[in-house]
């Protein structure tokens, strides 16, 4: 079990976190994550993740004779490779929680460097996302393409249990309001939300 990733670069709008090594299953696209250290809990949506060599000057080359074997088999047969790899995740801030207040606005300050980044729990997701206002920061971010927003809605809906359909409808209405000048984009996102 890998440890939770930690913040390695932080801004108000976006931050990056890195795992201690390579993980095959990092936080998935659209997942809401939380940084619970600092003056408030910063919430954000995973918009990208990338794995590769820790040292960019040493590109990863497939070992010879690896034909026909799975990645897990190749890694097991070449134990030096995994410790030289790393996985990083990029997160776009979509709100913060301070005390009892959840606000779908930028946090007052970036999350602390090296703070742990955890999956937001269902209460945090529901608290921030219930009115779907968190989508405005995502729509405004150049780092969020249509599939990120669609995945964020789909995954956030699961925090509402039986109310997930109602949440999805609210999110659809919020997106329609935010994207009234971009009908093609709205259509693309809605298609991505549909089960």
């Amino acid at each position, binding site marked *: 079990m890998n440890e939770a990733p930690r913040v390695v670069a932080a801004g108000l709008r976006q931050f990056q976190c890195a795992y201690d090594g390579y993980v095959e299953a990092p936080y998935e696209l659209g997942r809401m994550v939380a940084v619970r250290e600092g003056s408030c809990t910063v919430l954000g949506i995973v918009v990208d993740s990338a794995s590769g060599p820790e040292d960019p000057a040493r590109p990863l080359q497939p*070992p*010879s*004779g690896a034909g026909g074997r799975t990645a897990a088999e190749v890694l097991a*047969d*070449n*134990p*030096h490779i*995994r*410790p030289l790899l790393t996985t990083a995740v990029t997160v776009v801030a979509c709100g913060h929680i301070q005390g009892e207040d959840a606000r779908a606005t930028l946090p007052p300050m970036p999350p602390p460097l090296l703070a742990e980044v955890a999956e937001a729990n269902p209460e945090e997701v529901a608290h921030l996302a219930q009115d779907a206002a968190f989508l405005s920061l995502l729509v405004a971010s150049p780092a969020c393409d249509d599939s990120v927003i669609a995945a964020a809605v789909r995954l956030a809906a699961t925090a509402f249990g039986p109310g997930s359909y109602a949440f999805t409808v609210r999110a659809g209405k919020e997106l329609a309001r935010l994207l009234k000048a971009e009908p093609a984009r709205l259509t693309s996102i809605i298609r991505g939300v549909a089960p």
Partner: protein
Amino acid sequence: MTLRMEKALGQLPDVVERYAREVATLDKGLAAAREALAAWGRDAEEGDRAVIAAMANSPEPYALSCGEPVDATYPAPPFAPCTVIGSDGSSIEPDRFAAVPCYVLNTGFVVLPYGVPGEAVLDSKPVIGPEETLDEGEDDGNEGSGPAAWGVNLRRDVSEFVTGARLAVERAVNGDVVLLLDGTFFPWDLDSRTVAEHTRRDLASRLGDELELLSFSAERVSVGAYVSGTRSGDVARSLGAIAARTGPGWPASDALVFSRLLGDGERSALFRAQSGRRATVEELFPAHQQVRFFYFRSGEDVARVELPAWAASPAGVARLHAALVDQCRRCGGYPRALQEAHEQAVITMGDRAQFSRLLEGEASRQGLRAGSNGKHASKKRRAI
């Protein structure tokens, strides 16, 4: 001004041509050396006698037979599950222009389990020294004093061995282990007169203790100190003694002799390293720690692999040989564990510059300034 290529390059063809002529004249010498090797293989005792006789009048190291027919070649046995450990080191020598003379040792190490339990580890251990106040005036005679006498290279070599040996003992509980070291088995600076005598004595004692501890794990641990592209000439010298030939036209390096004898992945017979020189590094260690060696071909490279006598059992050598072939297959002809240990150990030019700046900053914070040196300052400035 940098090297003026337009002036230098004109001289290059002549140099290459001269060398090519020299190599061509070696063919006869190599054929004669192979005949001497075959004769030695037929009668090991007679061959050894000729070598020992030659040794008596020479300070140079020679090779003696070690139980296996000296002209035999051995294919690698199949690779069996084991942990391969590699260690290598890098260092920053004391800068005589710095405000504080100090050195850095960075020992890189890797632990790679192949089909045995245990986690893979790739890491390094930096040490900034001197860790204690060194008494520079303790030694007398013609030995060096000051930072030059600290023996940074020797400390690095010993640290590489100690790090690798401890990991090997630790991992032996999980199964067989092959420990690979970069370079020769014994650190030759142990008899360097530029290193303070008490430093050499302390490090030799520490190395001896670690060697003894490691030897207790002989059943499970193989050891090989790997010298890629070796230029040693112990066997060639012995063959010269047997054939009563030396000088021009006789191969000076063992790699030349064995490059035509060994196939890819094969090893030569085991040899004993010995010299008639007195007060050598070897004399600091007991008989069971004395060096045995064989040559190993990986692609076009002929490497010399040194190991202590206690690790030269047939099973120990077979495990080492199989691991070398497997390691070289994984890394373009050089052991993967050593390559990764090197990567962990390496101190880049950027690291060195940053360390220098940090040292200067810390010295300045504590009120120390480097003495003025015009040449050093001018090299930093380089202004016209």
